[in-house]
Structure formats: C-alpha cells, structure tokens
C-alpha cells in the first residue's frame, strides 16, 4: 500500500476515502481535515480565545495540538474528577503536554472545590457515575468559559462519539437529544459557544495522529467506562464500518444535513425558554439547574452521614488553578464572577 501523495510506503489507511498516507502526509491530511471543518462551520475565528477541554486522553490532546499548530489562542481546561489513580495520571499527561509546549492550563479539582469526588457524588445521589460526571463536566466547562471571558469551548468529540450518540438516540428516539447533535452550538446568554473540530475524524485516525506526533496522552481508560452503552454502539458501528467503509461518516453527516433541520423545525414549538437558576444564576429550564440540584442532593446525604459539616452550603462557583505555560504550582482562586474579562 502506497501513500496517495508521494508514493512511499503507507503507514495509515483512511479506508472511508479509499486512500492511505505515509507518516508525513498523514499528519498533513489530518490537520487539513480539522482546518476544513473549522472553516466550513465557522467554528473559530483567528482572534478567538479558545478554551480547550482536556481530559488527557488522545482526542483532547490531539485537538489541542492541532489547534495550536493552526495558530489559535488556546488555554486548556482540565477537570480533576477524583477517580483515584486514573485521574492523577490524566493530570500528569495533560500537564506534560502543556509544559512541553508552554501552553496555559486551568485546572479545576472537584474535591477541592466542591468537597466531593465524582464517585462520591454518584454514590450519594445513587445515580450512574457517567451521568453525574458528564453533567458536572459540562457545567464547569461552561462556567469557566463564561467567567474567564473565552469566546468558545472546543471539545475532542470525534466521529465515533458522535455517531454512537446518534445511534443511541435513534434507537430510543430521543428527540430532545437528537436536535442537539450539531458540531457547533452557538452562544446564548451565559452559555458559551461550543465546537467539536474533530467530529468528522474517527478514533482510529486520531490515535494514529497522536502516535505519529508522539504526543503524551493517557491510554488507560476510566474504570467507569467499562460496560458503557456507548462502547457497545461503537463496536457495532465499527463492525459495519469494516464491512462498509464510510458508514459512520454517512450516518452522521447525512443526519445532520437532511434530518436534523427537519426535526428542529418540527420540534421548535416544544422548545422551552431558558431562565436563570435560582441557586447559581446559570441557564436552566426549571427553577434550579440540574447541576445545583444534583450537588444539593449529594450534600444533604453527605451531611446526614457526617461527611460534610451541617452548616456548609453547596456553592456552585468553581475554584480555578492557573498554571501559566503549563509550569509551576499555580495558586487556586475562585473565578472572578460574572463579567467576562475581555
């Protein structure tokens, strides 16, 4: 198998495009794909301050690297979930990446900020770990972006993530979730713009990029990922993809092009207005947002069990640790609230 550009021996095959590339031209191809997605959907402007959500895994690390190479002004946001050694090693990989490239990093440690880790939050609320974890990450990400004056949050969601979520939503006809699959979610009052620049690249392609660029990343999986439905959907899609290259891309892209707009129109009557959460002031459809509700719930139980002193009230404001250029200890301080910095 030969490189489609130079004819040298190929290292990575992109079967859905019927092509293969040598290492050098693969890296070029990959970065070009990301650049094209960004331009096509107007995800980012050159002058934007971009907050990159970085878990330390291959997707977010590859995303940060590509955005940096494309010349965007990026800051990483890493959330310490408190999932034992897994979380510690995630922070190590993230810090190493930031430090080697002198990129600014913000860390929010959930235990430090909110007194509980994600496993504790799940246990106290008796909810699935991934569900309270996803909710918390989304809230913190948005709040840091809004309060620190970032123009946009970029996440490492890839084609497999998006196609498997779509498959899950279709299998259960989750219409409310189906209309929110766009690679770009525009900003609203106190809701930062969100973009997914890797949404048309597969996990395999992203892993190949990470390996060829020799990026430090955490290969180990979160212990709570095992048995997740998303893995089952991904496996099913990968079987289809192997037999019919291009299936994942067509499934997602054609949905976004043909079906989602129709759904959005048809369901727009049902769209509920957003209001401010009575606890934290951030957008919600009810009186209290799901984030505050969940954490308040956990606090009630934690107090009953004597793990948190009775007089402590849950405060939604995250504590940020700034690590300029990825170096040094960095001091924790609360985000200067409300007004964006610039």
């Amino acid at each position: 198998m030969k490189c489609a550009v130079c004819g040298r021996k190929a290292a990575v095959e992109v079967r859905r495009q019927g092509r293969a590339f040598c290492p050098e031209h693969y890296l070029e191809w990959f970065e070009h794909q990301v650049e094209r997605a960004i331009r096509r959907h107007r995800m980012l402007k050159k002058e934007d301050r971009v907050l990159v959500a970085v878990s330390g895994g291959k997707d977010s690390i590859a995303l940060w690297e590509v955005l940096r190479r494309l010349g965007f002004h990026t800051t990483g946001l890493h959330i310490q979930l408190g999932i034992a050694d897994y979380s510690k090693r995630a922070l190590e990989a993230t810090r190493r990446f930031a430090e080697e490239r002198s990129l600014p990093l913000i860390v929010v440690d959930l235990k430090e900020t909110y007194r509980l880790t994600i496993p504790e939050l799940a246990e106290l609320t008796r909810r699935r770990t991934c569900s309270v974890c996803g909710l918390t990450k989304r809230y913190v990400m948005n709040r840091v972006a809004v309060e620190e004056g970032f123009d946009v949050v970029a996440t490492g969601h890839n084609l497999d993530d998006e196609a498997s979520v779509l498959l899950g939503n279709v299998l259960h006809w989750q219409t409310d979730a189906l209309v929110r699959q766009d690679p770009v979610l525009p900003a609203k009052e106190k809701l930062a713009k969100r973009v997914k620049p890797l949404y048309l690249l597969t996990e395999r392609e992203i892993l190949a990029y990470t390996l060829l660029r020799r990026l430090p990343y955490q290969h180990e999986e979160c212990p709570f990922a095992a048995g997740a439905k998303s893995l089952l959907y991904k496996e099913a899609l990968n079987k289809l993809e192997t037999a019919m290259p291009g299936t994942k891309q067509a499934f997602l892209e054609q949905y976004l092009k043909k079906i989602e707009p129709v759904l959005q129109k048809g369901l727009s009557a049902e769209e509920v207005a957003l209001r401010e959460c009575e606890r934290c002031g951030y957008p919600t459809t009810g009186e209290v947002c799901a984030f505050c509700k969940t954490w308040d719930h956990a606090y009630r139980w934690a107090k009953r069990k004597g793990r948190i002193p009775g007089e402590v009230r849950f405060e939604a404001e995250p504590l940020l640790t700034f690590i300029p250029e990825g170096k040094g200890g960095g001091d924790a301080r609360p985000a200067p609230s409300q007004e964006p910095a610039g």
Partner: protein
Amino acid sequence: MRVVLRTPEREERELKGPKKVREVLEELGIVPEGVIVARGEELLTLDDEVADDDTLEIISAVSGGKR
C-alpha cells in the same frame, strides 16, 4: 511473533508468522476499525506483512464514557 495487546489492558499472545496484519487481526478476532497496529515506532496497514520474529503492538482506539 509476539503480539502485545493494549485494548487497553496489556495482554500478550504468540502467533506464527509470516502473515499479513489483516490475518493477525482476524486470528485474534479484533475488528480492524477499532485499532492501530504498530511494529516499534512504525504504524502498519492491513496489507503489511509481518515476520515470525517481529513484535507487534495492537493499540485500541475506542474509548467509552460520556464526554
């Protein structure tokens, strides 16, 4: 050949060579779309042939959970 699986837990297998990467994956029951196969620093395609004294690494690309 020695095959080191990182899917993502580390596991080792011994297979007879030479054969194509595609056949290695078939023999191990691994779906090619979910992995990258490497020989040292070199990434391999399904058509590449690997020798009996090669050491391969099969790295899983699939990650789970809500992100």
